[in-house]
């Protein structure tokens, strides 16, 4: 957090560029000099091979190639995923075109497929989850950074990160047996009594539905938003805080003017990352959302998401068109999450990269 550390770390990335090449070239020159002195007048393939080997140049080349291949394999994986998903969903792409994403029918029997209800379910449940998780996540980040006494900081941040380590299926299990009854019997009636007039919370409420799914999602994306927004806030230079405090600001004013305003891009990035996670979350959502396609305003009504329709129907799908329609949904999910994540990463980088020293 202090200034010297910031300086020493921020200069570190420049060192290799400056120093390594010079040493390498010096070593190469020395080697070249030695070889030049001992080089025979007649070039021989075997000698060249041995020389190359003894100087490690061949091994170096081979090793570098392997590493480059490993690095480029990440591109290959993305391209491969796109390729197999596109080629396996060709049937459905040809049959429905763009209409696939704009029609509401989902009728495996007559072979008529439209993804609109799933898009609606995914968007609504994810946005609701983000709405619930963001204020909490930011409050916790602020608490852990500036308010929390030191001895509590470690345990609490460890606990919140534990939330991220719990597998999706365990959230689902807990959701089915604990959260669903609570929402059905305790929270539901309250919401209906006070917010029923909005038309968002209307009986019958069976506990499984869009609202329960959003609550589970909110719990699941909370650690993502909280830990990344904390990183981003920590990356704001200390002098910003000190300057605002020196002007006589209270802690909240310092956070608002000095920290939140500087880190806002990165915070938005962390929120979008959380959104990306929510969009693709599968198992826990599938277990509590009710799995019924439909576009209704009532949040107690069962819904369906892009990911959960794949999880729920893929193994039972009969017929090539049905399968390829589900794979096309997967392709759409893939492309959307790629775009969402790319935007989020760029925003986070924009903040953390400017002040690399204090980011971690």
């Amino acid at each position, binding site marked *: 957090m202090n200034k010297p550390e910031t300086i020493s770390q921020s200069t570190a990335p420049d060192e290799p560029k400056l120093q390594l090449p010079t040493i390498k070239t010096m070593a190469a020159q020395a080697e070249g000099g030695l070889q030049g002195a001992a080089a025979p007048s007649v070039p021989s393939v075997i000698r060249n091979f041995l020389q190359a080997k003894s100087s490690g140049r061949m091994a170096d080349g081979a090793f570098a190639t392997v590493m480059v291949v490993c690095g480029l394999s*990440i591109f290959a*994986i993305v391209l491969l995923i796109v390729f197999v998903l596109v*080629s396996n969903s060709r049937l459905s792409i040809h049959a429905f075109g763009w209409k696939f994403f704009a029609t509401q029918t989902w009728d495996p029997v007559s072979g008529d497929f439209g993804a609109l209800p799933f898009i609606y379910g995914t968007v609504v449940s994810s946005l609701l989850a983000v709405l619930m998780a963001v204020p909490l996540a930011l409050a*916790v980040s602020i608490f852990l950074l500036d308010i929390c006494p030191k001895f509590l900081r470690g345990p609490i941040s460890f606990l919140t990160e534990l939330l991220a380590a719990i597998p*999706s299926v*365990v959230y689902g299990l807990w959701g089915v047996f604990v959260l669903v009854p609570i929402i059905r019997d305790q929270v539901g009636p309250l919401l209906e009594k006070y917010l029923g007039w909005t038309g968002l919370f209307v009986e019958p409420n069976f506990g499984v539905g869009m609202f329960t799914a959003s609550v589970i999602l909110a719990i699941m994306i909370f650690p993502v938003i909280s830990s990344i927004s904390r990183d981003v806030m920590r990356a704001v230079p200390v002098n910003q805080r000190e300057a605002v405090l020196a002007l006589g600001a209270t802690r909240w004013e310092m956070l608002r003017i000095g920290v939140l305003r500087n880190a806002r891009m990165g915070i938005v990035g962390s929120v979008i990352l959380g959104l990306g996670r929510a969009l693709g979350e599968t198992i826990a959502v599938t277990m509590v959302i009710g799995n019924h396609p439909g576009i209704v305003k009532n949040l107690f009504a069962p819904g369906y998401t892009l990911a959960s329709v794949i999880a729920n129907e893929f193994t039972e799908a009969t017929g090539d068109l049905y399968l390829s329609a589900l794979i096309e949904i997967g392709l759409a999910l893939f492309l959307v999450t790629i775009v969402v*994540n790319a935007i989020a990463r760029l925003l986070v980088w924009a903040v953390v990269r400017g002040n690399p020293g204090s980011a971690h």
Partner: protein
Amino acid sequence: MSALPVRSRYVASFVTLRRSVTNNLVTGVAIVSTALVLVPLVAILGYLLYKGASSLNLAFFTHVPVPVGDPGGGMANAIVGSAAILGLASLLGIPLGIGAGVYLAEYARGTWMGAAVRFTADVLNGVPSIVMGLAAYSLIVAKQQHFSGLAGGVALAIMMVPTVARTTEEMLATVPNPIREAALGLGIPKWRTVLSVSLRTASPGIITGCMLAFARVAGETAPLLFTAFGNQFWSFDLNQPIAALPLQIYVYALSPYDEWHRLAWAGALVLIVMIMASVTLVRIFANRGALKGGH
């Protein structure tokens, strides 16, 4: 203050009051929110311990599932199946990930290409796991015409690569350059320097990264649904459908039978203990690494 007219003095004190009230209010909100967030965590872990521990017995670890109605039965085959799938995934994903990390840290630092690979890895990290399952299905299951543990392992391996690559890179970046330069200065070829000096120095952190990636995929259900598929019997053949702990929990949780619910809770407890154990190990490793790294 005394120079100000009386009215301004009142305004000033009112503003000060408002500011300090706001400040305290925000502090209070932050504290309450943190407490609120800890509630579901404690609720989940507590309930899981309570339900899981009361349903766990020796048979869970030694028996295969029995048909509905029969008492007893366990998930021994699922534990073994999970181990097989995760072993395969680690075998494929970890070397590839470490290689990519080495490329990023040692060969492509500061280059345009490196930035592109890094960015792609970060984006790949956020791709939903079910899409990985679909990809593995299309690549392997659709070609072979049958479900297999192999396809499940590949799906999980793909998920491990970006995580392992990025942590490896970050850990290698903490290795001080003078150490590398010392090695190069002694005439050691670059590949030896990378293997015996950089990777060696960063190894505790890299192991941490691998364990985290492992813990992350260990609980994944979605990519296994239509790759490994699950199996009610013993199966060691990775080329056949194979049972996995998360899959079994999923199926049992959604079943209408109390006996199966009991087994699902026990399975969840076992799964989470496995994951927590690896995360805790990671913490120990990471702390040791910080001491050993000495920078």
